């Protein structure tokens, strides 16, 4: 939406531009801190460790957190449902299934990037099913139903693959991957995830007017020149690219997409297009901080291993979900 010189200012508690500047600053600080905190110790490391271990991890946290936060904001707007998130559409489970198949057939053992590539392929296939199951007249409820069906299908096939796991080590590795995390990711993972994520994010950021129009219902959106079918299709494709590529590289990191838009609404109001930029930045900040926290757990607590990142986001996100539900109750 163009902002002319005499554009209507939004009545919100904080000016949108000020908020964006603050969030961007916060993200830079979080990313810098993340480069200074390692698995074993805090402080600047040698160039090699920073480049090979901390940099990919930080870049992935920023990219994936941003992708998940933005996907959540877009899906909540597109489906007009405050509980929508990429997991709801079955994109994350489909990516998980793809990665598992790559693992199951031993492809990942011979060729390391096979796991995330399998995940990307799974997300793509999942999206195709989603658009097929949702039918031609893609409406909010039919998209949600198709997403639930896809989640159930992918979940069942994953359980089947787990019971048929070739050996206990494979079982353990798959389970750990499904929990989601960013440890031991290399720059090659960044190179694989970044293009689809950036493409998806670009597509999603352009949906502002379409999402705003949908606020008034499907007929009114169409009469404003924003056909709801087009908005929903672009939202689904953008989320499959952004959230699917994220899940392919980092496994199942839940609740970021759900929680972030709710954190932003008190600051920017409920207009869907106003939530997109702030949700992108806040998702990136939150995941970078969460991943830092995960790495610091062994330094702070008497435990031998860091908890998976997906476990941490779920531990924080689940109570938050309860809070949203209670606030929505009349």
């Amino acid at each position, binding site marked *: *939406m*163009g*902002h*002319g010189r*005499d*554009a*209507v200012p*939004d*009545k919100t508690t904080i000016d949108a531009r000020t908020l964006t500047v603050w969030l961007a600053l916060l993200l830079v600080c979080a990313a810098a801190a993340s480069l200074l905190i390692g698995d074993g110790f805090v402080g600047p490391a040698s160039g090699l460790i920073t480049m090979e271990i901390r940099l990919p991890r930080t870049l992935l946290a920023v990219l994936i957190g941003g992708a998940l936060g933005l996907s959540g904001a877009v899906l909540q*707007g597109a489906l*007009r449902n405050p509980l929508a998130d990429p997991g709801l559409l079955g994109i994350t489970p489909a990516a998980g299934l793809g990665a598992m198949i790559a693992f199951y057939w031993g492809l990942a053992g011979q060729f390391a990037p096979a796991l995330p590539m399998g995940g990307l392929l799974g997300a793509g296939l999942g999206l195709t099913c989603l658009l097929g199951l949702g039918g031609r007249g893609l409406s909010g409820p039919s998209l949600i139903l198709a997403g639930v069906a896809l989640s159930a299908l992918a979940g069942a096939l994953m359980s089947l693959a787990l019971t048929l796991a070739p050996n206990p080590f494979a079982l353990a590795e798959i389970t750990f991957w499904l929990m989601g995390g960013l440890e031991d990711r290399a720059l090659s993972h960044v190179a694989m995830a970044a293009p689809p994520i950036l493409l998806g994010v670009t597509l999603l950021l352009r949906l502002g*007017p379409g999402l*705003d*129009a*949908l*606020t*008034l*219902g499907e*007929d*009114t959106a*169409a*009469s*404003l*020149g*924003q056909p709801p079918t087009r908005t929903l299709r672009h939202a689904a494709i953008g989320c499959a690219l952004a959230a699917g590529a994220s899940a392919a590289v980092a496994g199942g990191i839940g609740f970021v997409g759900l929680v972030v838009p709710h954190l932003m609404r008190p600051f920017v*109001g*409920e*207009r*869907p297009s106003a939530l997109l930029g702030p949700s992108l930045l806040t998702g990136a900040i939150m995941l970078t901080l969460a991943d830092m926290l995960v790495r610091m757990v062994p330094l702070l607590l008497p435990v031998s291993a860091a908890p998976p990142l997906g476990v941490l986001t779920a531990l924080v996100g689940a109570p938050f979900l309860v809070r949203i539900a209670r606030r929505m109750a009349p």
Partner: protein
Amino acid sequence: MTRLDRFSLTLGGRQILREVTLHPKRGELLALCGPNGAGKTSILKALAGLVPGGARPDPRHVAYLAQNTPPSWALTVGQIATLGRIPHGDRLAAPVGNALRRCGIESLRDARIDRISGGEARRAMLARVFATEPGMFLLDEPTADLDPAACHAILRLLRETAEAGAAVVVVLHAVELATEYAHRIVLVDQGRIAADCPAAQALAAAAAIFGMRAGVGPRLLPNP
């Protein structure tokens, strides 16, 4: 300007509209009246380009107000009115301010839509249509939820808008109310245009078509 020529519509095997011809004109407030389920809303949607095979209007020139649908998110009145600028791709303050003023809700600009009365919310939706500054207004029951004073104020505003050069088409339940403000009244019955006449002749026509004596309240119109 959009129009319908012998337009028929069948949805799910049910014939909704049969050979409807309707040419709204600039400078004219046209009221579509008839019993529930007669097809008034379908005619309006066909003009707005919302049904398969209907007109394909430019959203910058033709604005449509749906029957009462609450917005999904708690936007402010000002934000709702600003949505009317989406077809133009801008958020100009002048048309939005004018629209809020004309609909009499300027003081509510920063109020959340879920914290105001139903009638005020309806006016916010109407302001959204005015903010588009269209040449043609397609309004489905714009006076629903309004008290009698507000109802007359809105219809007076719509008549002025038409006389200033716009084409205004409104769906109204009450024929009597329509005769007070509309220039032309189209009576719709069972998916057909049963009569298309100047406002002064509408009550007599309605009496003939719906078996209703002229002068009797529209609440006695038979439901199909």
